[in-house]
């Protein structure tokens, strides 16, 4: 992963933890582990909260890219890739 994305990934992990008041530290979030369900355990309420913060922080609006609304959130790495590709700020 390019250095910039690595930095962004840490930043996004911090954003998730602070938005949701999670009991883990950002570097404990495994980049490729699932953010919802069995992984970090986020649910759709959390994902909407994080989506609002992401849209504010990075200046673009999240849209579902297919019928699966939350696939962008399948992992920290996929969310980071999505932000890197779409960010306006």
């Amino acid at each position, binding site marked *: 992963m390019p250095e910039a994305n690595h930095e962004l990934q840490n930043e996004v992990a911090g954003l998730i933890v602070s938005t949701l008041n999670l*009991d883990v530290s950002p570097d404990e979030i495994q980049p490729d582990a699932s953010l919802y369900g069995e992984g970090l*355990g986020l649910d759709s*309420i959390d994902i909407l909260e994080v989506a*609002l913060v992401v*849209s504010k922080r990075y200046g673009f609006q999240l*849209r579902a890219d297919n019928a699966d609304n*939350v696939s962008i959130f399948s992992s920290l790495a996929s969310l980071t890739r999505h932000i890197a590709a779409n960010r306006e700020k």
Partner: protein
Amino acid sequence: MSPLPLIAHRRLDAVVAWRGGTPVSAGQFLGEVAHVAGQLPPGRHVLNLCGDRYRFTVALAACIVSGRISLLPSTHTPEMVRQMQRIAPDVFCIVDQGAGVELPAFRYPESAPPPGAGLAIPAIDREQVVARVFTSGSTGVPMPHAKRWGSLVRNVQAEAQRLGIGAGHAILGTVPPQHMYGLESTVLMPLQSGATLHAGRPFYPADICADLASLPRPRVLVTTPYHLRALLADQATLPAVDQLVSATAPLSQDLANEAESRFGAPLHEIYGCTETGQLASRRTSAGAEWQTLAGVRLRREGPTLWAEGGHIDTPTGLNDVIELTGDGPLSTSFLLHGRHADLVNIAGKRTSLAYLNHQLNAIPGVADGVFLLPREDSMDRIGRLAALVVAPGLTPAALTQALRARIDPVFLPRPLLFVDALPRSAAGKLPSQAAQDLLAALQARSATGMTA
């Protein structure tokens, strides 16, 4: 009593749904209903898991015309699915995409119906039980409530009448059709008022706005306080809407006012419960008082408040804290002061503390445990449950995983705190204030960096 038609659309070329930007006619819809009904496996009970609201509606209608009963549990966790199977051993699920649950599955057919299928609008007996909706019950066993066709139809027709919705209205929902509110307001109300339903279930605010903008006016948004708050916070401009509908949790007057002014539409809240369906509505910006739907009356008799009349087949006791505001013993207006104390409602998912406590204590390794309601902070934000647990041999991760198989994820406790013992009285009772105090003390300790 005469049977009632499956749909209120009077012509086969009337539009019943918008799917992927394309209108679906009543004739096409009825053809698909007959096509699906002809292929269903023999079981009489169905868990309809279709994510596409149009396909959900076709599958529901196919079950109705073939005499099958749709089961609507409060969640689809493995434990709940097992309970459905115990209640109805012949249950199967209908899926349209993705994985289903641990049940025999019928996949929604991709094939087109043969020409000429479904050229008449089926009529359904009013007494036919078309669904069983489950409440949590207090002993860990879900309680079924039968929904008869005649009552459901009268209920959603009263809703449409109250909201002024009829032929020409297009309805978009952000709530799933697998729960009562979504079933009534995004599936049955459009079918029974001649309106049009949108097949999608947009999640992100930008998707909700795009889907709304794609619909012809007049258009209706059926949503929840939680989605409304996200929409208003996230979107600088909102598409014009002609009617806003909110339910599942009370909406603050501030949020209602902001939604009305930014969408340019009246906002009505719906109040109901599983046992009775929808009972009343209010224009939140105009005041706190609720007006019952057509024909529905509330009557206090001793300690019990009964709802009767209208679509309610037999008088039904209500558990919520309600103050009647009309004159005399029968009332059509009231104030709602709170839900039944045991009821838990998070983002529209409902359960009871008793049910959650039962599930928690049924996990091997849990010696004692209790769920606690979040303290009220802001009405429009989602509060999470907390739990105190005595489980010396379990890790937090193992306990969370065991809970995940039993209860809906929105009810997973945050925080989940391990303690040596719960502050039970000598009689074994757990005063809720004592439990809340222990929780507050533990949270204060962890906030100052000490470990519990």
